[in-house]
C-alpha cells in the first residue's frame, strides 16, 4: 500500500484536520461530533438547510459540496463507510435555519439506515427532515427498479440544483422537489481500470488484470456490468453513452448538462479524450449541450477510471445549475447561461 499517510486508522480524522486548517474561513466543526462539518456561517437563518454525508475517500464528494449555493453541512464516515447517526444529528442541529433540513445523499444501504436513524432523532428534537437520494448509476439495477440504484458522480447535479433552489429562499417542499427532479433526471455510468486501497484495510478492494477494465464499476469498487479487455477511449465512451441515453431515455432536442468525472488516478487529459467522443455522440443524437464539466467531481481514492453523467435540463434546472456557488473544492464554472453549442 503506497500512500502518503500516517496511522491508517487516523486517516479520516487527519484529513478533516487538514481541511479545517486550510479553510477555517469556509468550514467549521458542528458541536458534538468531530466528523460533522458545516458552513462557517451556519446556520443560515431563513434558508432551507441541506445536509449530506457518507463514507470518506471521495473528495470532493461529500464535504467539497458544502458552501454557499450548495449544502450547509456534511457528516463524514470512515473510508467508504457511512457516518453514524450521532454525527448527522450534530450537523442537522448546527445547520437548521428554521425552515427544515433536506438530507441529500447517495443511495447506499449503510447511509440510508444511519441517516434514517438520524432523521428519527432530529424529528424528536423538533426539526423537520426530508430525504432525497441520488441514484444515478444506470448499471446498478434495471430501469424498472431505478430507486434501487446506487449514486455516483451525478450526485453533483442534485447538490447544485438543490443548493441553488434553497439559496433562492424556497421552502423545504420546493427544495425536495428540485433535488428529486435533478436526481431523477440524471444518469451515469462508470468504468474502472485499477483498484484502490482503503488505508485501514491495507489491501486493494479488488484485483484486475493488466489488460482489463470493469465496465459499470461503482465508486467503491462494487462490481459492474462486465469485465473485459481494455477498450479504446472512443469505444468505452460509446458504450457508456448508449447505455445512458437509452435509459432515461434522453430524446433528440433535449438539453443536457454533461459531467465527465475522473475517479482519481485517471489524468484530466484522458477525460478530455472521452469528452471529445461524447460530444460527437451527443450532437449526433440531437442533444443540445448546455454545460460541460470535466474533472474530478467524485473520486475513489487512487482508483483509475472515469464516469460520464448526463442531466436532462428544463428551464428551472438550467437556472439552478447555472446559479453561483462556492466551495474551494469545486472547479471554477461559468455561471451564465450561454449555450455551448
Amino acid at each position, binding site marked *: 500500500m503506497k500512500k502518503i499517510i500516517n496511522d491508517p486508522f487516523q486517516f479520516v480524522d487527519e484529513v478533516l484536520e487538514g481541511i479545517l486548517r486550510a479553510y477555517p474561513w469556509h468550514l467549521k466543526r458542528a458541536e458534538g461530533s468531530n466528523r460533522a462539518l458545516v458552513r462557517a456561517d451556519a446556520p443560515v437563518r431563513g434558508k432551507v438547510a441541506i445536509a449530506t454525508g457518507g463514507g470518506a475517500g471521495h473528495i470532493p464528494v461529500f464535504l467539497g459540496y458544502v458552501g454557499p449555493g450548495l449544502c450547509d453541512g456534511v457528516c463524514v464516515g470512515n473510508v467508504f*463507510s457511512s457516518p453514524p447517526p450521532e454525527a448527522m444529528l450534530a450537523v442537522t442541529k448546527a445547520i437548521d435555519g428554521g425552515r427544515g433540513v433536506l438530507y441529500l445523499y447517495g443511495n447506499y444501504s*449503510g447511509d440510508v439506515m444511519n441517516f434514517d436513524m438520524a432523521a428519527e432523532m432530529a424529528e424528536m428534537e423538533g426539526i423537520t427532515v426530508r430525504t432525497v437520494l441520488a441514484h444515478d448509476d444506470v448499471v446498478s439495477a434495471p430501469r424498472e427498479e431505478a430507486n434501487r440504484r446506487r449514486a455516483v458522480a451525478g450526485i453533483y447535479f442534485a447538490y447544485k440544483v438543490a443548493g441553488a433552489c434553497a439559496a433562492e429562499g424556497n421552502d423545504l417542499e420546493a427544495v425536495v422537489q428540485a433535488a428529486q427532479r435533478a436526481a431523477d433526471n440524471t444518469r451515469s455510468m462508470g468504468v474502472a481500470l485499477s483498484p484502490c486501497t482503503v488505508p485501514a484495510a491495507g489491501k486493494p478492494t479488488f484485483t484486475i488484470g493488466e489488460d482489463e477494465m470493469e465496465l459499470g464499476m461503482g465508486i467503491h469498487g462494487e462490481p459492474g456490468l462486465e469485465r473485459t479487455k481494455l477498450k479504446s477511449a472512443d469505444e468505452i465512451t460509446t458504450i457508456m453513452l448508449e447505455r445512458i441515453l437509452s435509459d432515461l431515455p434522453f430524446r433528440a432536442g433535449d438539453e443536457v448538462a454533461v459531467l465527465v468525472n475522473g475517479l482519481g488516478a485517471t489524468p484530466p487529459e484522458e477525460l478530455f479524450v472521452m469528452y471529445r467522443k461524447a460530444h460527437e455522440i451527443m450532437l449526433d443524437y440531437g442533444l443540445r449541450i448546455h454545460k460541460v464539466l470535466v474533472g474530478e467531481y467524485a473520486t475513489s481514492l487512487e482508483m483509475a477510471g472515469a464516469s460520464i453523467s448526463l442531466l436532462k435540463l428544463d428551464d428551472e434546472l438550467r437556472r439552478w445549475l447555472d446559479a453561483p456557488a462556492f466551495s474551494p473544492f469545486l472547479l471554477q464554472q461559468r455561471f451564465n447561461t450561454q449555450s455551448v453549442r
Partner: protein
Amino acid sequence: MSKALTLSQVAKALAYVAQSAMANAEKLRELDAATGDGDLGVTMTVGWKAVLEALPQLEQQGDIGKILAQAGMTFNRAAASTFGVLLATAMMRAGRQLQGKAEATLEDLVRALEAALQGVKERGKADVGDKTMLDAMAPALAALQEAASKGQSLPEALAQAAAAAEEGAAKTAGLKPRFGRAAWLGERAAQVQDPGATAVALMLRALADFCAQLD
C-alpha cells in the same frame, strides 16, 4: 457455570467477542472485497475496539440490557456502516429485552435474539434468504429455541446456535443477493459467502466458546 450469565460475565463475553472479531477481521475484509467494498474488516476492528474501550464504563450501569444497547451504539458510532447500524439495531433491541436485568438466562437470550432478528428485518427491510446477516441470525435463533425447549444448558444451546449460524452463513454462498452492495452484482455474487452472515457466525461462535469455558 450457573444457569444464567451474570453482568460481569456478559461484559467479559463482549470483550471476548471483540477480541475474536478483531482477530478475524482480515477474513471478513476479503469476503466483503469480493462482493462489496472491502470495509467490513475495518468496521469490525474499529467498532469492536471502541466497544472494548468503553466496556469498563458500560459495566458501571449494572444492567445487562444497557450494556448491550450501549455497546451497539458505541460500535456504530465508531464504525457506522450497513453492518454497524444493523448490529447496533440488533443489540439495542436485544438490550431492550434484557433491560434492568443483572442476570440473563437461556430464555432471556432467546427473547433477545428474537428481538434482534426482528430489529434487523425492520431496519434493513430484507428477509431470510436475501443473502444477508439474517441468514445466520435466523438459523441461530431456531437452534437456540430448540435447545431451550429441550432443556439444554446455556453453553450447549449457544454452541448449537453458533453451529447453525455457521451453517447458515456457509449456505449464503448459493444465494442471490438482493440487498446491500452485493445486490448490484446479481449472479456474479452468487458464489461468494455473505460477509455479514459470516461476521454474525463468528461473533456467535466466540460467545459460545466463551460460555463453554465458564465453570
